[in-house]
């Protein structure tokens, strides 16, 4: 039986396989977005009383930078066994004008990307147990719309 896919962290992302999105807040009074939802107030100065609306963030943006890690990170990081180098990408979301970190998707290498390139969000398994796959977001070069 197929395992159920659940977010590795509750409330941070949708489980829409084709069009996954990160879940953040919008403070309409300042026009500012927030991710992750760490504290339930707007961090825009002077807007602490603003109402926050939960919104799904745009899942495309431009590559700001990237780096490939060649050493196994310490716990609580989860690494492939045996360890394989992995790339962390920083992508500036088009609409929200915020840079979001994420690992590069499986099957994509740092050789395939360059700063300024259009990227899109995908779901990927971070770890699994007998019943569940725990999903996290990753970045890959964008496919044409």
């Amino acid at each position, binding site marked *: 039986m197929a395992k159920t896919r659940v977010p590795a962290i509750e409330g941070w992302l949708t489980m829409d396989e084709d069009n996954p999105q990160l879940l953040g807040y919008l403070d309409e009074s300042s*026009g500012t977005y927030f991710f992750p939802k760490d504290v339930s107030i707007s961090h825009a100065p002077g807007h602490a009383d603003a109402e926050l609306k939960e919104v799904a963030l745009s899942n495309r943006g431009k590559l700001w930078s990237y*780096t490939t890690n060649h050493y196994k990170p310490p716990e609580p*990081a989860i690494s492939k066994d045996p360890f394989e180098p992995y790339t962390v990408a920083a992508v500036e979301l088009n609409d929200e004008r915020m840079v979001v970190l994420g690992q590069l998707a499986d099957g994509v290498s740092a050789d395939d990307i360059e700063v300024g390139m259009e990227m899109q969000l995908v779901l990927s398994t971070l770890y699994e147990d007998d019943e569940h796959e725990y999903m996290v977001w990753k970045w890959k070069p964008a496919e044409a719309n």
Partner: protein
Amino acid sequence: MSKNDVAILGAGMHEWGKWGRNFAEYGVAAIKEAMADAGLEWNQVDFVVGGDTVRNGYPGYVAGATFAKAMGWTGIPIASCYAACATGAQAIDIARTRILAGMADCVVVVGADTTPKGFLAPNKGERGFDPDWLRFRLLGATNPTYFGLWAQRRMDLYGATEKDFAHVKVKNSRHGISNPKARFKKLYTEEDVLGSPYVSQPLRLFDICATSDGGAALVITSMDFAKKHGVANPVRISGVSTISPTFPQTVIDMPDFTTDSAAGMPAPDRSFRDSIAYAAYEEAGLGPEDMDLAEVYDLSSALELDWYENIGLCKPGEAEGLLRDGSTEIGGRIPVNPSGGLGCFGEAVPAQAIAQVCELAWQLRGQAGERQVEGAKAGITANQGLFGHGSSVLCTR
């Protein structure tokens, strides 16, 4: 002389290394050296500020008390503070604020650390509420990950090369080789650096600073106290910056998953890192053109190049030129990291920003030996601590 000046009468450091001894031992050695340097006795000290370490249990959280007790309780008021890598600057600021308020005359500022091997990691346990824990869990985003992102960005934006990064390490190794307090007293070649394995590509093992044990201390006094003590022309602290970012902060920073969003409110004219030294210059009424040397936080060799621009030594994109033409080498126009920097020391978190100021004190007194910057009259330190802590100290003589 500015109205906010205070005097540095003593500077002391325990050598940096990796011994795993009690951190208080390193701090006490630094205090004793700074007191002897100042020609003062412990019972003349009327305030102590300890920079906390979060890796050495409870005594590390109350560093002011730990060091006051170690030196012998004298009933004086104490303070402890923590601001990650910027802890030292905050401790210095607490000391001088107390002095400028007329509530203390002779203050000891001290920080010391004993660090574990390998990558710095978050606190243990399931900590789903802690962004520092989550960035490791969800992204595998170690500290060097952020250094690598900044370095790759420099390459794409300004044409920096891995050879430039190696050059920074080589330069700093030439500076630090004669520094008795440095941990790595070894000359590196570009081949050494470029032959070391990648950690966070494009950065290699020798591009990234190690974590070290070490301790540093300063004796800071009012200008009046210095005069009465017979020091007519002490090294002065003329500006201290402990600023935080202005919203929206648009450069990705440890330990965050995201930057702030700039969709609603415009980004400030100066980035956070650009504004750190600027605040110290502004307080001192001086500018980058008045500086004879700088000590900046080379957590990675590439980051040193960012700092050249952040502290105003050149425009964005010009740092590689400054490095390549020798301007930032001892003997050049504006030597950077004459101490050898973190490349020669490794980082002992709560001691490091204090150690940067120790180097300024020795340089401005002309006591830096083989690494002396000739005729140095003014210098600045710059550094940034996790979670938005600016750190910059400007000294003059």
